[in-house]
């Protein structure tokens, strides 16, 4: 009733007078200025508040020096007017100093705005134990697909796995005894691995958006990145043991396990049979085909370069024999026949 109406009015009135007090206080602070402006620029994910305090102190100090400098410059201009040449050099230095301060502050503000790596900091907040657990979990398919599975939005593990894959690819070049143009191969390796990770993640995220799956971009990057762990293991083993049927076993076994894990996680986050089929089918196909590509295409890339560079020195049958031994050819044929029979 009326009693309750008056209370907010009194509170508002009290608040307004309080605001007037606060306004006055703010005016006092405005000369220093930085405390109010700092709040706007403060990033939620910034580091400890000690850094911000330090920055505030620094700005206050700079404002002090600038104010002092202005006061002195005012004095200096009067001096110059009177024709004291010795002071002109000091005035020049003062102005240069001020320009430097202003320029530095502007540059550091622009830098901290655009090149703020603190944006990525929360995605690297992991412990070694967590990374190890996630690596092992990436090979174990989950059974519960009715409940959305948790995906850690972490980028350290996936990034390290991509670099490890690049290193393994380069190591594979060494063991295949064909190093011709290291530079081109290295660029290709880095481009392939990063292209796959970023490109396929974006594509899967786009498909997930179309299929109404509950997954964010960072989570797709993380999921696919950890899926590369299977690729790393497979390639590491098969680049050292050149046996084609061993590669197929690893391709199906290890590659299949990591694919199943990713598929299960995606299925748990998608509703609807068609959507699940589209999303998981695409991911499985791309994942398995990438491993196949990495194993075979690099032999061909190397051989292609051999072709163009070594010219007529290398008889062709030697190259073919090195890559496709007769044993695995027979295995390939029997496998194909077996598959044809079952279909």
């Amino acid at each position, binding site marked *: 009733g009326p009693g309750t109406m008056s209370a907010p009015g009194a509170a508002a009135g009290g608040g307004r007078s309080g605001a007037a007090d606060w306004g006055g206080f703010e005016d006092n602070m405005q000369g220093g200025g930085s405390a109010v402006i700092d709040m706007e620029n403060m990033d939620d994910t910034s580091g400890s508040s000690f850094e911000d305090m330090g920055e505030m102190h620094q700005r*206050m100090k700079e404002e002090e020096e600038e104010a002092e400098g202005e006061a002195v410059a005012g004095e200096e201009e009067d001096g110059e007017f009177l024709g004291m040449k010795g002071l002109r050099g000091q005035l020049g*230095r003062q102005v240069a100093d001020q320009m430097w301060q202003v320029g530095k502050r502007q540059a550091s503000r622009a830098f901290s705005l655009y090149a703020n790596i603190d944006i990525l900091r929360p995605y690297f907040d992991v412990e070694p134990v967590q990374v190890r657990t996630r690596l092992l979990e990436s090979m174990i398919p989950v059974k519960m697909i009715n409940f959305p599975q948790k995906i850690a939005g972490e980028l350290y593990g996936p990034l*390290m796995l991509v670099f490890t894959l690049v290193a393994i690819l380069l190591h594979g070049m060494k063991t295949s005894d064909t190093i011709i143009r290291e530079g081109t191969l290295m660029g290709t390796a880095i481009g392939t691995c990063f292209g796959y990770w970023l490109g396929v993640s974006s594509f899967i995220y786009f498909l997930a958006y179309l299929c109404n799956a509950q997954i964010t971009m960072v989570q797709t990057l993380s999921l696919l990145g950890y899926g590369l762990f299977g690729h790393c293991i497979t390639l590491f083993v098969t680049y050292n043991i050149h046996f084609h049927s061993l590669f197929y076993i690893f391709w199906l076994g290890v590659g299949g396990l990591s694919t199943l894990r990713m598929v299960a996680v995606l299925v748990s986050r998608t509703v609807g049979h068609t959507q699940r089929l589209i999303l998981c089918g695409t991911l499985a196909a791309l994942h398995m085909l990438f491993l196949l590509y990495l194993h075979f295409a690099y032999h061909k890339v190397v051989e292609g370069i051999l072709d163009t560079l070594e010219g007529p020195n290398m008889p062709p049958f030697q190259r073919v024999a090195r890559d496709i031994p007769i044993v695995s050819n027979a295995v390939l044929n029997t496998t194909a026949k077996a598959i044809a029979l079952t279909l």
Partner: protein
Amino acid sequence: FAGLADVSISEDIPVEGEITVPVGSRSPDEDYSTLDEPVKDTIMRDLKAVAKKFVHVMYPKKSSALLRDWDLWGPLVLCVSLALMLQGGSADSKDDGGPQFAEVFVIIWFGAVVITVNSKLLGGTISFFQSLCVLGYCVLPLTVAMLVCRLVLLAGSGTVSFIIRLIVVVAMFGWSMLASTAFLADSQPPNRKALVVYPIFLFYFVISWMILTFTPQ
């Protein structure tokens, strides 16, 4: 925050005290004196600083000299010499070796930048250029390994020479790892050292791979 209120300067508070010109103290005097000194002195001073850091890398004690006065001269010299030595390994004489030099250069600097950004994101207390400086200087053992490999390859390229080169490169790789982790791992929170060491391992592994698989023509 209460303490900061009296630090601010507003218009209605008069500025009291002596208005001495602080300019002279702010612009360092040694800048003017080092401009006047002979060039030889400047170069010798920088060379001595670089040589001191080389010694620190070869005998990694836990000193902070490498971190305190960082400079990028040493890494540049090492990177250029390593890239030059690796350049002659192109099989085709028509190939001018240009891309290879650039590739080595880019890989070393790009790798160092990635490791630095990674260590900063993991909460490291070391600054950007300090980390670049340490990683660049710790390429020194691998440059020495490259020299040794070239000399061994002059003698011949068979299985024995490959084994010798393998041992030398692996030893130098270990030395680089030890040296860089001695300087960099301390700046990390103690439970995350492994997370920082692993990319350094990959980085030096790739460089060692390039050195080991070098075949002159």
